[in-house]
């Protein structure tokens, strides 16, 4: 493929930008302007480079591409090993797409400590991309955990009134989950003498009881990140308090780390335990879908409502991942991508009115359609995408997941499907309360419609949502080979274990 290390370039380019931001000096105004420019240029450039990945990606190959390998800490068997396959390709693109959008979205809304803000986002992008490309368990862990530091600061410094509590909850919940994963990684290292993921996928053979311990350790980490019921309580807090761009990254990328972790680590490394625990995942996901949808119905805060809807949507992701057939897993990944874009856009929609009115209370709004037709259209578009209107991206993922689930367990599919109805209920209710109705509130009478900058960052999201809904094959085809391999390997491992159990 390409001669130069393109993945490392994408990973570390934002750090270069962060470095330049740090050394910018001068009067406050100039520093802010320069930092904004540096940030948007670096993240934009990163996105363009990441498009090269997509262009050069070979969809017929199931294995890893663009691999780079080097020694890092040989004493502990840790290497710098990165590469992507069909599963991780789009997550990398999602991260590189959403970061410049976040920078644009915080162009005017962030005016304190702009320099630090941009540095935090650039560092965050490095960690996110690094996590999705890492093919070494320790490297994966470093990036997975490293994300906490900039995110903690973003919520804590630029967040709302209860930001401190939210930042701590976010950090400690996630940390508690991840340290157990660290022990699981150490156990794998102990077995193999290396933390290389590709080697682990080929060679890791663990007795069933050990598989279960390790699976639970990984589960603790990923379930918090997804988040699954009942460990989702940090999410609404973090979302409500985070600045708009923080919520966007949180919903758009950070939640996907959990789902990605299941697909990348839990399922291929621990297939028997995956089979054993799948019913647990189904149960928790169904509860998540139904329960959090109901909770969303009674929210008074726009961001909180969308946050709860995220938990419900991520429920589909975990169901799809663990039904482990082609449709389910593809649906799960597609749902993550679609949710990454749609929920990000919904948070941006909240951000648009929040920037104008400085409140997120649903009751404070009403009748916006009269003053803001463009906004009303955008909001409606993404609300319907979130509900799963055919022709928009949300539908494809949910449909595939339900299809996959029906093959495995009708009841799971049944409960998951109720989420669709409830989802429509709360999303449309929110839309009705905010956009329709009479324009009675005095302070809303002078509200301005979206400006050009805002249209600029919504437009790509609108187009993408349409593209994903109308022609999902452009996204499903590149991942097909890798997903096929994942499912195939899993079935083979299960069959092997079963024959081993039958013939002592």
């Amino acid at each position, binding site marked *: 493929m390409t001669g130069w290390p393109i993945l490392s370039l994408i990973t570390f380019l934002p750090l270069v930008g962060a470095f330049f931001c740090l050394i910018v000096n001068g009067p406050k105004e100039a520093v802010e302007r320069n930092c904004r420019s540096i940030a948007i240029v670096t993240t934009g450039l990163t996105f363009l480079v990441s498009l090269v990945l997509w262009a050069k990606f070979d969809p017929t190959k199931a294995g890893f591409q663009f691999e780079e390998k080097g*020694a*890092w*800490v*040989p*004493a*502990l068997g840790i290497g710098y090993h990165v590469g992507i396959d069909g599963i991780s390709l789009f997550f990398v693109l999602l991260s590189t797409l959403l970061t410049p959008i976040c920078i644009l979205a915080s162009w005017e809304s962030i005016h304190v*400590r702009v320099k*630090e803000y941009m540095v935090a986002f650039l560092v965050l992008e490095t960690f996110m991309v690094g996590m999705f490309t890492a093919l070494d368990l*320790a490297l994966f*862990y*470093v*990036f997975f*955990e*490293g994300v*906490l*530091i900039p995110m*903690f*600061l973003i919520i*804590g*410094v630029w967040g709302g009134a209860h*930001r*401190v509590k939210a*930042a*701590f909850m976010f*950090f*400690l919940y996630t*940390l*508690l989950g991840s*340290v*157990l994963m*660290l*022990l699981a990684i*150490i*156990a794998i*290292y*102990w077995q193999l003498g290396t933390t290389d993921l590709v080697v682990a996928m080929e060679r890791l053979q663990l007795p069933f009881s050990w598989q279960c311990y390790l699976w639970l350790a990984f589960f603790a980490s990923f379930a918090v990140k997804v988040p699954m019921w009942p460990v989702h309580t940090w999410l609404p807090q973090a979302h409500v308090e985070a600045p708009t761009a923080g919520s966007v990254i949180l919903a758009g990328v950070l939640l996907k780390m959990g789902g990605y972790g299941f697909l990348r680590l839990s399922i291929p490394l621990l297939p028997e335990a995956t089979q054993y625990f799948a019913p647990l995942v189904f149960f928790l996901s169904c509860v998540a879908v139904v329960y959090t949808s109901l909770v969303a119905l009674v929210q008074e805060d726009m961001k909180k409502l969308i946050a709860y809807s995220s938990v419900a949507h991520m429920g589909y992701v975990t169901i799809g991942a663990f039904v482990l057939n082609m449709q389910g897993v593809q649906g799960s990944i597609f749902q993550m991508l679609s949710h990454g874009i749609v929920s990000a856009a919904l948070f941006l929609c909240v951000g648009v009115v929040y920037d104008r009115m400085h409140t997120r209370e649903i009751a404070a709004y009403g009748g916006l359609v009269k003053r803001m037709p463009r906004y009303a259209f955008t909001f409606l578009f993404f609300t319907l995408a979130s509900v799963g209107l055919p022709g928009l991206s949300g539908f494809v993922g949910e449909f595939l997941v339900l299809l996959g689930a029906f093959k495995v367990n009708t009841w799971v599919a049944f409960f998951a499907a109720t989420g669709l109805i409830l989802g429509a209920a709360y999303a449309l209710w929110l839309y009705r309360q905010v956009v329709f109705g009479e324009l009675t509130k005095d302070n809303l009478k002078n509200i301005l419609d979206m400006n050009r900058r805002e249209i600029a960052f919504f437009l790509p999201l609108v187009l993408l949502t349409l593209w994903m809904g109308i022609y999902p094959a452009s996204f499903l085809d590149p991942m097909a080979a890798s997903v096929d391999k994942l499912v195939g390997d899993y079935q083979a491992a299960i069959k092997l274990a079963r024959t081993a159990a039958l013939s002592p």
Partner: protein
Amino acid sequence: MIIGLESWTLARPELFLAAVTALLLIYGVVRGESSANFVAIASSLALLATAVLIFAPYREGTAFASLFIVDRLTATMKALVLVGAAVTVLMSRAYFERVRAWRFEYPVLVSLATLGMMLMISANDLMALYVGLELQSLALYVVASFQRDSERSTEAGLKYFVLGSVASGMLLFGSSLIYGFCGGTAFVEISKALLDGRAAESGVIVGLVFVVAGLAFKVSAVPFHMWTPDVYEGAPTPVTALFAVAPKIAAMSLLVSVLMGPFKPLFVQWQQIIVVASVLSMALGAFAALRQQNIKRLMAYSSIGNVGYVLLGLASGSEKGIEAVVFYLAIYLVMTLGVFATILMMKRRDVMLENISDLGGLARNQPMMAFAMLIFMFSLAGIPPLAGFWGKLYIFIAAVEAKLYIPAVLGVLASVVASYYYLRIVKVMYFDEPAEALDRPVFGINRAVALVAAFLVAVFSLLPQPLSLIAAAAAKGLFP
């Protein structure tokens, strides 16, 4: 064995330090109070020169009829201690000048204490161990109460002295029991007696328990930690910085060489003690620090917690475990020096501050200082990719390989709890509204130490390999 030239060349660094310290003492006495600056700089240079002497040229072997041993492990540990002591001497001037206690005795006493630490690290006999330990302790008792017109400092010194004497007594009592049951005080003899089965095992174990208790006091492992918060809080801040690094590393090195040397045959027995001390230290270090307001007290609990992790590496009793101990201590040294350098810069209108809340809004007033502290705090909390994470990873790998699963799980959970109070400092610096601004630090040694330490933490974060090679070489000393 005749005490020949070989012995003297092997103990060259110690002899050099002793000679220079004696000369500086004479110089100080002759020149009086005004010599403090010169003595301080000279003695910290001498400490660094001693560290160089250890490695250039490096020799190993035993000396003075096997009382004294030099190998890679002791050499590395001595280097860490010497660097820690040298830097803390340099860091202390501004503080003591402010409280009008800047006297030449301080650097001399620190040098003498360091000499004691070097002797105890190199001890190869229970007698040598005790002599080194006492030389170190006596000098440190005085140093703790060096700010003699301060009630708190005097109290800290007295407390340290009384409790330290009890620990020394226990150590002596244990040594005498071991002597009685093994018929010798040399490590080689003890080891031989245990392997032959000549020694009555139960008696030796009782003796060993006392010795371990005495050493656990010196490293401030739970349940012998009680003195730590009070002494750390009361002692003058530069002295606290010294306490947090040098004697702790020295005593830990001693614990390693005693347990992994002569008492290796009793591994199964002492492992239980160390595991319990380790888990309790990690837990107490995490929970007790949660509500502290004084940053020195907080660092005391933090150091107790860190000792817990180091002990877990020791408890695994493997080569990897000892590597982990050395690796962790090296990173701990850098982080701790950095934190104390920052604490020494905390002053407002020329008054030294010690409360965490005084750091409020530091990120706005002094972004560089706050950023350095941020790095130290996340590193102490063990969040990747910072250096502290590699230290913990090393320890936990060793623990899992030694099948210490439950302690490892408890250890990671304790690290989550502990991360709360490290985060709290970050929160105060970054989230809180600025309190009244701290004094702008003049470009001084403390600022330089903090920045260099932050830089080193960053380097170790990205490139932990060189440090792990050093640690591996050091651990080879015990596993030839």
